[in-house]
Each structure stands twice: as C-alpha cells, then as structure tokens.
C-alpha cells in the first residue's frame, strides 16, 4: 500500500518527458474515476474545496481553458481566470511580477499557457504554487498528451506495441512531444509524418519513425493523431497552399479505406475541415475526436487532484 501511494509524487506537471509508464498509468487510472463523476447527474465532488487555481492564459485558447475551468469547478476548487489581453501585461509588467502578484493573493495552483517554451519551469522557481503546463510554445502540452493517450487506451486497450502516427505540423505544435514521450513510456511505437519543412531538426533524437509520405504513415500505424495545420504557416512559405497540403497529407476516407484497418482517428482541435482532415473522417465512425474532449476534463481533474496533495503544516 505504501509503495502504491508513492507512484505519483510530483509537485508540478511541466511535461511528460521523463515520466515512467507507471506514473502515466496512475494518472490515467485516476482519470477513469473522474470520468465516472462527470457522467453523474451531479457532476461535482467536494474534493478540492478551498483550493484556489489561477488559469493564466497568455495565449488564446478555448478548449483547454474551458476544460481546465470545468475540471476545477467539478472538483469544487475556486478557479480564477487571467488572460493577458486587457491585463497589466500590456502596461509592461514582467511575467515574474505578474505571477508573483497573483500568488500574493493566496492561490494554490497555477495553470499556465504561454507562447514561450520553458515558462512553466520558470514559474516553479519563482512561485510556491503547484504549476500545470497548459501548453508552452512548441515544447509540451502534457494534459493534451495524457488525454490523447487516455482516449487511445479507452479505444484499443493496452498501448504496448501499438503503432501511433502523428500527422502534420510536428515542428510548431506542442502536442507532438507530449504524445511521443507519453506513448513511448507506455511501450507504444510512435511515428511522425509531415512535410520536411514542418519537421523539427532534432526529431531523430526522440526515437520515432519519420515519414514524409502519407502512404508510409498509413502503412505503419493503426492510430492516427492528426494535428492542426496552423494557417499562418503557409505565409511563412512552409508549404505552397492549403489545397496542396490537403492533397499530400490530408486524411480522407478514400485514403483510409485503401487499408483494411480498424482505424482510430484523433485530432486535438481546432479542426481545419478539408485541410488536414476531411469532414467525412472527422465526423465518421473512426473518429474519437469528441471523446478526446470529454476525456480532457477527466484528465485535468485527475492532474489537479494528484498535484493538490500537500505537506502537513
């Protein structure tokens, strides 16, 4: 029993890099219990009563912010929302001062989304609160990685030996790294597929298969996590046109049905229909995209719960 309780002893969730399979499994199992809570008529438990959580979003987000806020409310924590637009950030206040001022109002946990990689790590050095990374630049988005993995596990069971391919913009997203680290910790095999211009330079270092043709990826994997093509990337000349991208890498029914596979198709959202994924696929039987969203709340509840343990005063 004692050892069991020590499975998860982290103070913060900055990324899935370095997580063991046991730690990830523990989070997923905890989330399963919360998944049951959010199906109840009264979707709320008193577990985090009296805990204040600040959601600091220095970058736009709908899904992640609402998902965290719902998770906090369903645990009876008190959420406070902060977004950089309309705040003193525009008056030139430094990040350090902003968050130290917020902490001085007696808060327990900080959920942070920021365009710069490493900001959550920085916060652990200037704050006493528990820090949860809700996406830092192109680095990690651990709760997204966890909810993706949870959704895969829910669909296909044990992920050991399963083949997953991430498709699209591997370079600028924060979802790929969290998926890669988490899946590998559970023994899954991971591939990435996308145009060479959207592939990070050091992708070979993380032990994934790299594909530049979609057919190779479809041959390889059974689970596809289709990533959003950030429309602004086209202006940077990383691919010629959205239509060209769709022709080369878009996930279509026609492509999927060339293989006799029981596909699992995922997408972290927001979707660009007709670009990285066809509507028939996104809304079709293979898709578990909306399950991902539902599971996201349960995963965030689990993470908030596990990080809220504290020392005896």
């Amino acid at each position, binding site marked *: 029993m004692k050892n069991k309780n020590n*499975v998860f002893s982290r103070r913060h969730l900055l990324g899935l890099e370095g997580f063991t399979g046991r730690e990830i499994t523990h989070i997923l199992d905890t989330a399963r*219990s919360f998944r049951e809570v959010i199906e109840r008529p*009264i979707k709320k438990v*008193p577990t985090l009563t*009296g805990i204040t959580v600040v959601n600091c979003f220095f970058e736009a987000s709908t899904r992640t912010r609402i998902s965290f806020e719902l998770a906090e409310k369903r645990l009876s924590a008190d959420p406070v929302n902060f977004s950089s637009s309309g705040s003193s950030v525009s008056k030139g206040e430094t990040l350090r001062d902003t968050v130290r001022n917020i902490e001085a109002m007696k808060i327990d946990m900080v959920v942070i989304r920021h365009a710069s990689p490493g900001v959550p790590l920085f916060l652990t050095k200037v704050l006493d609160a528990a820090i949860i990374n809700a996406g830092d630049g192109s680095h990690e988005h651990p709760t997204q990685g966890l909810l993706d993995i949870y959704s895969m596990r829910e669909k296909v069971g044990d992920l050991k030996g399963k083949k997953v391919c991430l498709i699209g913009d591997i370079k600028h997203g924060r979802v790929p790294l969290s998926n890669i680290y988490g899946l590998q910790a559970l023994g899954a095999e991971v591939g990435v597929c996308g145009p060479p211009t959207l592939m990070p330079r050091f992708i070979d270092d993380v032990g994934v298969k790299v594909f530049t043709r979609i057919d190779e990826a479809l041959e390889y994997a059974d689970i596809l996590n289709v990533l959003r093509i950030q429309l602004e990337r086209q202006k940077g000349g990383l691919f010629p046109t959205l239509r060209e991208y769709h022709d080369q890498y878009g996930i279509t029914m026609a492509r999927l049905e060339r293989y006799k596979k029981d596909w699992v198709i995922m997408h972290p959202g927001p979707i660009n229909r007709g670009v990285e994924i066809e509507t028939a696929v996104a809304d079709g039987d293979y898709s578990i995209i909306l399950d991902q969203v539902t599971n996201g709340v349960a995963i965030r509840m689990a993470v908030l*719960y596990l990080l*809220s343990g504290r020392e005896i005063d």
Partner: protein
Amino acid sequence: MKSKVKSQLLDKKGLKDTIQRVAENIISTDISNVVIIGMQTRGVPIAERIAEMIRKKSGKKMKVGVIDVTFYRDDFRIRLKQPEIQLSDIPFSIDEKDIILVDDVIYTGRTVRAALAALMDYGRPSSIKLVSLVDRGHRELPIQPDFNGLEHKTKSDEEIQVRVEEIDGEDGIFVVPIPKK
C-alpha cells in the same frame, strides 16, 4: 497483503455465518425496495455475498452497486499524498430506494460520513442503512451501524483486518498490529 496477526476473531466459517446472520436480519425488514451498495474495497465482495444470500433465502434478486468515497474524505488537507482512487459504479437510480450500505469495519465513522455525502450526489434515496462486519469502536461522529457482525474494541496499537477470498485469497477476520509508518 498479509501482515502479522495478533489474533483471529473469525475463521472462514465464522465469517460466512456472520454474513449470513446480517443477511437474515436484513430480510426480516422490508426489502421490497432495497438496493445494496458496497464501499471500496472490502465492502464490495461482502455486499455481493449479502446480496447472494438474500437471493437464496428470499428469491429476490438484489441490485448491487459500488462506491468509492475518496473524493469525499475530510482529511484532504492533512495528507501528504493523494490516496489512490477506485471506481464507483452504481448502474441504477438510487432515488426513492432503501439503500443498504456495506463496509467491512466501522471505526471513526468518517468514511461512512463521506459515503453518505457521496450517495446524496447520486440521488435522493428514501433511506440508508449501514452494515458493518466489525465495529472496532472509537467513533468520532454520531454514526452507528444498523446491522453489525461483531464488536471488538481495538487498542491503540492494533487494527482489524477483514480478509476475503476475492481480494486476499482467504476468508477471516483478524486483529493485526498497526503497520509502522
């Protein structure tokens, strides 16, 4: 998980007889509207055994649910690590039902308080009655079992272990020393 045993209160047969007696006491009340809820972990197989005995004796098939009360515990702020959560599964409505809530041991009463709070979030039962196999005394809240197996007031250095075949590989009730932290 086996620890050193100070003494044995009941063996396999004793445990069976105790559960049998509890089941008979339940049958002697109005069971027309009863559902049984077992508390994680040991309460669950005990609840199933009670349901099975009631079915054998009265022919009435009982609905059995499972509840985990971790979310509702009141020691959140004084714990170092969060305890492991287990599943709750109540696949039926508890509105207007008479609930028989089953736990293996009753001690401070705080777990039962948490279970009552949890059940209220599932619906509005007509009534809730409490079953425990062992009452080890030292209550901290005004909560008493309606059906109890046996009483054994524990000393400060000992606790009660109810072992069940389904989880522990054997049936029996034991007094064991409190494991050192």
